[in-house]
């Protein structure tokens, strides 16, 4: 109610304004009658030039706005909306148009972004905003965050926009872009989804054809980067066209995940021991690797593994063996033996071993395993000649 009352007051205030003289009225009548937009603009310029202090300053700016709109001149519309806010900071018309138009500015200054944020928040603060105004305000707020590189709040605003209007394909395109810009592994699939929706959605709220195709091209490029090829892209487009957000658990296999999967399948067939170790190591090196170690591995026996001896200490009667499983030159496991071995083995000797996980060092990676001689095979029975460190 307050908002409406304010508008009425503003309108009444305008009604109280007076014509400077009859010539001003003539000029305004000619503006009213002019159907040629460019001519109308010229007449408005005349009005502004001849009556710079006209009491109808805000109305004149509104007429400028609608004229520039007819000309499709968003840049000048934005400028006029800025003038309205400069002359009257709480101008609802200025706030609305500045908010709506700011994202079209290709080089918005930090000051404009700040003004846009203020205008957007002013719209959001309206007790009874018109239908769609919240969407416009949040759209611009999200865009402003995006321009500032504040991707998380941008994502949040765009998410709210899509809740308000799931058909807003433009917002999907923006959200997809922001999610991709975040460069976070967990944002890649949602980004692809949003871009797919923006490019595939064809009902009310869809992007114009040119822009839709443009987003489609970007989607295909990113999808290939992520997935390796276009397999599944059509299914993604179809699914995204039908829903603004992916279902819980929706995933697209990345090229890395596919490589890991194929590797795991192949290793499981050709070298199950190595396959098991790669799986364990991947889990240990994941973000929650420490938890996995504590919950699952610690003090528990490892499967039988095969690796290459890199180092043994102390010489002669080694009780600590450093072993590379994946790379014979890269230490991964330190076997701590409960009792020392009776002799040395050549560096590079391939060993099979079992043991109990004891401790984990994530960087550089190292898993300490408690074992004993009975659980190691491949160790030479007779003392082997030590030939120095493995290359």
């Amino acid at each position: 109610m307050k908002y409406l009352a304010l508008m009425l007051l503003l309108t009444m205030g305008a009604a109280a304004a007076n014509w400077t003289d009859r010539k001003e009225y003539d000029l305004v009548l000619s503006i009213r009658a002019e159907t040629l937009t460019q001519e109308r603009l010229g007449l408005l310029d005349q009005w502004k030039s001849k009556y710079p202090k006209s009491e109808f300053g805000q109305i004149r700016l509104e007429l400028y706005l609608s004229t520039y709109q007819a000309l499709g001149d968003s840049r000048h519309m934005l400028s006029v909306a800025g003038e309205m806010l400069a002359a009257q900071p709480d101008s609802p018309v200025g706030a609305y148009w500045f908010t709506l138009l700011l994202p079209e500015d290709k080089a918005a200054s930090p000051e404009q972004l700040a003004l846009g944020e203020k205008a957007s928040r002013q719209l959001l603060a309206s007790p009874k905003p018109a239908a769609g105004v919240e969407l416009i305000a949040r759209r611009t707020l999200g865009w402003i965050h995006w321009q500032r590189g504040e991707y998380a709040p941008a994502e949040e605003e765009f998410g709210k926009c899509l809740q308000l209007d799931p058909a807003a394909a433009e917002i999907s395109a923006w959200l997809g872009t922001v999610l991709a810009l975040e460069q976070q592994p967990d944002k890649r699939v949602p980004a692809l989804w949003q871009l797919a929706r923006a490019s595939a959605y064809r009902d009310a709220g869809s992007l114009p054809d040119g822009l839709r195709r443009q987003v489609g091209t970007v989607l295909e490029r990113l999808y290939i980067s992520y997935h390796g090829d276009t397999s599944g892209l059509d299914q993604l487009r179809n699914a995204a066209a039908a829903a603004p957000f992916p279902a819980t658990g929706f995933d697209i296999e990345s090229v890395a995940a596919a490589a890991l999967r194929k590797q795991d399948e192949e290793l499981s067939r050709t070298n199950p021991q190595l396959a098991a170790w790669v799986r364990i190591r991947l889990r240990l090196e994941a973000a929650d690797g420490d938890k996995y170690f504590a919950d699952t591995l610690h003090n528990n026996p490892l499967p039988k593994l095969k690796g290459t001896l890199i180092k043994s200490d102390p010489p002669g009667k080694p009780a600590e063996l450093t072993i590379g499983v994946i790379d014979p030159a890269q230490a991964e496991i330190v076997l701590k033996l409960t009792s020392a071995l009776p002799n040395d083995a050549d560096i590079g000797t391939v060993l099979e071993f079992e043991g109990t996980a004891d401790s984990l060092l994530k960087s550089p990676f190292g898993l300490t395993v408690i074992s004993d001689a009975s659980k190691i095979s491949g160790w030479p029975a007779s003392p082997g000649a030590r030939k120095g460190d493995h290359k």
Partner: protein
Amino acid sequence: MMRIVRSTGRRRSAWLNCSLLFLAALIPALHGQETGKRVALIIGNDAYTISPLKNAVNDARAMDQALKTAGFQTILLENARKADMDRVIGEFLDKLGPDDTALFFFAGHGVQIESENFLVPVDFAPVATISAAKFACMSVAQIFDELKRKRAKRNIVILDACRSNPVTAKYSLEAGLAKPQDAPKETFITFSTGPGQTATDNPDGRNSWFTEALADYISQSALTVEINEMLTRVKKRVSDATEGRQTPWTTSNLTSRFYFHQPLNADSDDDSTLTEKWMEDARVRERREEWGQAIDLVNQVLQKKPGGPLEELAKRKLPYLTARRDAQARFDAGDYAAAANLYEQALQLDPFAIDAALLGVNSYLLQDHWPEALALLKAVRQRGTSAAVQTADLMLTQLAAVSPEAGKEVQASLPQPPPIEEVFSGRHFGVPDWDAGKRHLQTAPVDIARWTKELKMEVPMPALILPALAAAPAAAETAAQTPGTVTPPDQAADAQTTAVTNAVFHVEVISTADSRNLRIRPDAPAEFGYVQFDGPAGETPVVFEGTQVVLPTKLKLPAGKYEIRTVDAGKVVNRQDLEVTPLSTQTFKVKRP
């Protein structure tokens, strides 16, 4: 003998020039979707020494105006000599880029010589031979060649040059233009009539039938139809106007749609701004007092039910326009009483329709109804412009002779003009036009190309990815199907070691496509050669198709082409091509960097 052909046109309706200017102002809004420029070269030739024409320059000017409304940068050339045409065609071509739409329009004499079309410059003079005549004219084929060389996104060629003339008869040439041959790719061609035919005269007109219709349709911003559809309409209009004697002709190899006025969604024809454009066009018609056409446009708007202020405006406008149309009809029929009533009605619907008030005054005066005329003149004094007030005062002064009230009124001081809100009644100043904002969002989508262009989604390979193993299944299958492929003895036992090869110094033997193709032919006899790999014993793995041996080794390889890659710490440090021929033995020396 050369035959020169040309059409003329009937008078173009008066509104066209005016609406063209208005529509030109809308260009940025209406052409935001297509990338690339629209460039038009427009030539109109009247001033021929032989068989001068009357309307070709008008046609060129009409097209110039119309094409500007459709977002074209235009080059207009009137009464061009051969040298002018050569020069301007160069200028036109220089403006074209690969994303651009090129449009060539010619109105003037055209001629076909030996099935080739030529456009006649104004300085053409009769020559002795047909060959000389060709040189004196502009070859359409040459224009096509230049357009092919420029490879613009699309070309549109419009020739309004199909009129019979005495020169054609003199050289005993065929009538009309020839069917164009060897047009560039992505080209739309239209003639004002069919190949080999001549166009119907339009001696009373200012434009040719064809150009008049075409320019009219192009200038209608609301007519968001594809070029083929537009030309279908032109054909119908010309055919109707000439009672079937002339039908424009088109041919096209365009592979994409072209719109002079792009709908918002070209594929769906669902242009939400169409109603707005119709309303703007209605205002233009109203200003030109074309009431019937304005009413039709407003009705179109109402049928679309756009809602919001636009629908409100259309609803308000319709009875006003109807009253104006009917008032004019009654006035023209001499029914001044009915006309006066209708003008009153119109003035009530739009209190600032001062012309309606003055026409109403006229209608009353013709019936000697002084008090009613006086009331309208008072309204004019209050709401009219200074010029209208002067007219009203003049009328009041004359009326004073029969009406003392009129004398008093003219002596009275001028009333204050109404407040500005009344001037713009229907507009709510101080309140955002939410619907206009929504419409704006639909018409002006934000171009995000500058951000998306740089987007990347490369997924880093985890350190634990072992490429040799990841590729192993396919390689293993290939090897299994290929009799004689080398199988190193320790392969099975040492798959684990194979996995490490990417991390350490090693050599990879990779067959090229030629060799792979050779080996997947099941019926091809297997032919093999050998490659001896030498280097530090036992240190460097050699990997071939997922299998691995260490130096020194001799690989038995199917005949074909290979690339030998030396890899250190995951990076290829050396590449060498190698061709294995049957039963040959070659040596490859492995060197550490």
